[in-house]
């Protein structure tokens, strides 16, 4: 036990408060900037308290042309694009990883371990390393400027397969034997027993993958040229460089605020399962 003394107590609180400020201040400034109009944001000193233009800014960002004077897509479309990409990546990854882990753990087929190691080796080859060949492949398949192009190359990954393999290995053999005696075939066993048993792990993985997909920057930047396929994360950067005029901080910050909401929503709504999935070991 740590000793309880007023001084240490004060010190720990001081450090904690400092930490909270360091994390919360940028978000607060983002929020404040999203509540003022363009002119106030270009005056020094910058405001520290919320203004009155939040709804105007939201309206202009979401449904207007966004940044005035550019040809950018409206932000609601970007949100939709990001959402589609993040969902396709996380659901696709989970589906494929579940099935491949199922095959590797529960079926005896030739070159089973070879398959496993081949999947495993791709851990060393993230998108950034194989970006040129991957682009080539995607371009040849005609998937540029499409949701498929945005998500499929990112779906291939070993982490999730590896994780589900470990999860399945913790399921007692008797569970499978019991299901066999009950007359459950492989797919029935998969859907009725394995899936419910790995429910928390799937949720944890979904949270991680959703944020991973949502935050993709480099890959969408490369393969989308059509503004209607822009994702919100890349658009924030583009807004900064937009046009010759000074940055419209109110709009940019509103966009940033909007970009934060879906990941936060996913984390909060799946928090309980997420923690269970990472800590629970017994089946």
């Amino acid at each position, binding site marked *: 036990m740590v000793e309880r003394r007023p001084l240490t107590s004060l010190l720990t609180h001081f450090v904690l408060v400092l930490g909270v400020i360091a994390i919360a201040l940028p978000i607060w400034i983002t929020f404040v900037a999203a509540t003022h109009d363009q002119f106030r944001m270009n005056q020094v000193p910058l405001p520290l308290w919320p203004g009155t233009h939040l709804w105007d800014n939201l309206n202009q960002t979401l449904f207007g042309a966004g940044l005035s004077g550019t040809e950018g897509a409206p932000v609601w479309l970007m949100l939709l694009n990001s959402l589609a990409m993040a969902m396709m990546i996380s659901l696709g990854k989970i589906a494929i990883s579940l099935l491949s882990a199922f095959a590797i753990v529960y079926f005896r087929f030739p070159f089973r371990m070879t398959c496993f190691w081949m999947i495993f080796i791709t851990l060393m080859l993230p998108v950034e390393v194989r970006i040129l060949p991957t682009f080539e492949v995607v371009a040849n398949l005609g998937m540029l400027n499409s949701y498929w192009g945005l998500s499929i190359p990112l779906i291939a990954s070993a982490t999730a397969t590896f994780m589900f393999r470990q999860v399945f290995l913790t399921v007692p053999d008797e569970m499978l*034997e*019991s299901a066999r005696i009950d007359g459950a075939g492989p797919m029935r066993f998969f859907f009725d*027993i394995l899936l*419910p048993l790995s429910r928390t792990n799937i949720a944890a993985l979904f949270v991680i993958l959703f944020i991973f997909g949502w935050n993709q920057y480099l890959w969408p930047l490369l393969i989308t040229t059509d503004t209607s396929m822009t994702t919100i994360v890349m658009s924030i950067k583009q807004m900064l460089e937009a046009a010759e005029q000074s940055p419209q901080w109110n709009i940019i910050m509103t966009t940033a605020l909007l970009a934060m909401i879906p990941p936060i929503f996913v984390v909060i709504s799946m928090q309980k399962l997420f923690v269970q999935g990472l800590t629970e070991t017994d089946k």
Partner: protein
Amino acid sequence: MAEIKLTDLTKSYGPTEVLHHVEGEISDGEFIVIVGPSGCGKSTLLRMVAGLETVTSGEIAIAGRRVNELEPSARDIAMVFQNYALYPHMSVRENMAYGLKIRKLSKAEINRRVEEAADILEIRQYLDRKPRQLSGGQRQRVAMGRAIVRDPQVFLFDEPLSNLDAKLRVQMRLEIRKLQQRLGVTSIYVTHDQVEAMTLGDRLMVLNGGYVEQFGTPIELYDRPASVFVAGFIGSPAMNFLPASIEAEALILSTGVQLAAPQVSADLAQNSAVLLGVRPEHLVPDEIGPIVIDVDMVEQLGANTLLHGKLSGSQHEIVASVPGHVAAEPGSKHSFSAAPELLHLFDPKTEKRLET
């Protein structure tokens, strides 16, 4: 009619043979216990009957039908596992109904069977709970319920009581026996506990190192053990073994003491060495008895007293079990005699019983 026939059954993992030419016929409604030390192949044998392990050679037939190649679900069996193997995410009701649902029975029929089984096992009030909300004994009942609802031709039990505490084990043992008698389903039960085996089984199959040592009723195994292994395995405390020889119709212990010999087959050569087996409870205190024990430890069990010691004049360990309380000091000598018909003779080389 669900009789089981095992014909020349062998199991190998790669080049290692773990079960050797197992033969056995189990008649309809019989309760068979396969017993043996860990690693003797008893679970493997059960799992082969269940269809969870492949058969290397030989044949398993259930109700006259060869089942070697059949999936477990097609063999019309039900199995109770040591760790119960209940599906943790399903309620007790769903656990019991799962197999029936797959077999596409009607909802009403499933409900009827589940509730009937729940009544038999007195778990009706737990039907909507999850397995983790139940105690070990209750889970055990659910596991049996899952077997009962299938209404199978054969029950298979794989050490189902070894995760329970001693008191509950005794209680569940009786319940399993009563249940099996009531349902009249052919059952195979695997255990390493010889008391469990003796109390449950109509007949016992004693396995050792992948060989069937003996297959018979508990009393046959107790009265006429076929080998040194069975003799030592069945009965508690274990049988005493003393080297001896046969000379002119008499049995001479290594210390030179002469005992009245049991009936020995004629072809047993004179002067041949034998291994004498005598159960501790068959040593009767007798002032002038030939078997003298130098007692070095006394265990008071209440109903009887165990005298541990050495056969006087030798280094052979010997135990006597005497009814009631006996005042015995370590270091004292006690004399015993044993009825000739309660002596067992074994060949010291093959360790097989010498027919008497």
